[in-house]
């Protein structure tokens, strides 16, 4: 199964890195959409279905918290798994996101293995890594 993924981060470089790491981690990507903030993410979701959202936390215009609130209030989008990719590691900051139904977080800096393990947990049996093995040197 190929997954449509939405990457939300105000850094174009970080979005490029996450996309690359998803490939290295073995996720079979269908369409990969990118938004620079929560508002852009919601606009993309108006027109495209995605299976997974990977979002930064601190972003201009609409941050990760507001994005998650919008997603959880919308019947169409409330079941889409959301994983935060963030420099934030403090539990007291992340707890409100987990209470809102965010499936997990990956703290930056991260290794491709961290992404793979988190996605395996979240996508469960639906996870079928494609043939490309982890290649640390390509990261």
């Amino acid at each position, binding site marked *: 199964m190929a997954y449509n993924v939405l990457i939300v981060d105000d850094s174009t470089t970080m979005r490029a890195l996450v996309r690359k790491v998803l490939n290295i981690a073995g996720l079979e990507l269908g369409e990969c959409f990118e938004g620079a903030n929560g508002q852009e993410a919601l606009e993309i979701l108006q027109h495209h279905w995605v299976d997974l959202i990977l979002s930064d936390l601190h972003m*201009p215009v609409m941050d990760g918290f507001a994005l998650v609130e919008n997603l959880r209030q919308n019947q169409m989008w409330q079941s889409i798994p959301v994983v935060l990719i963030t420099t934030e590691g403090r539990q007291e900051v992340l707890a409100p996101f987990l209470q809102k139904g965010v499936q997990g977080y990956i703290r930056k800096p991260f290794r491709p293995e961290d992404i793979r393990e988190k996605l395996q947990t979240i996508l469960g049996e639906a996870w079928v890594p494609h043939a490309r093995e982890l290649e640390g040197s390509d990261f």
Partner: protein
Amino acid sequence: MLESLKAATFEVLETMFFLFPENPEDNADLFHGSAVKAWVPVQGPKSFRIGLTVPLSLAREMAANFLGLEKDEVAPDNIDDVVKETANMVAGSFLWKEKAPEGFQLGPPEVLHLDLHGLNRQNNANAIVLVVDEAGLEVFLEKS
């Protein structure tokens, strides 16, 4: 605090860039030429900035490693973005290692280009100088 800053820097450079910093024996010749300085403002009970100054050659290498590109494929915007993201990750990791209360929040990273030639570098008690591939890298924590 500087130990946490150093540990955060090592973690970021090793994990995201495959670069392994060392402590310098002498930092007199480590900083010259063009450089990129990026920092993240930290707001909270105390306001300060966490950032780093990197010679352009090392910044280019970091961007290439980060994005899986050859050095000559790296665009100037990539370099700025990567150094800003590095400052962001070091700052986040520092707050986490220091178990900083929730009240401390990271602001958006900022970047500045410098020419280190002729700059009078002062010893900064709140900075760490490291060597990466024979280039200097300064990580600093300063009041904003």
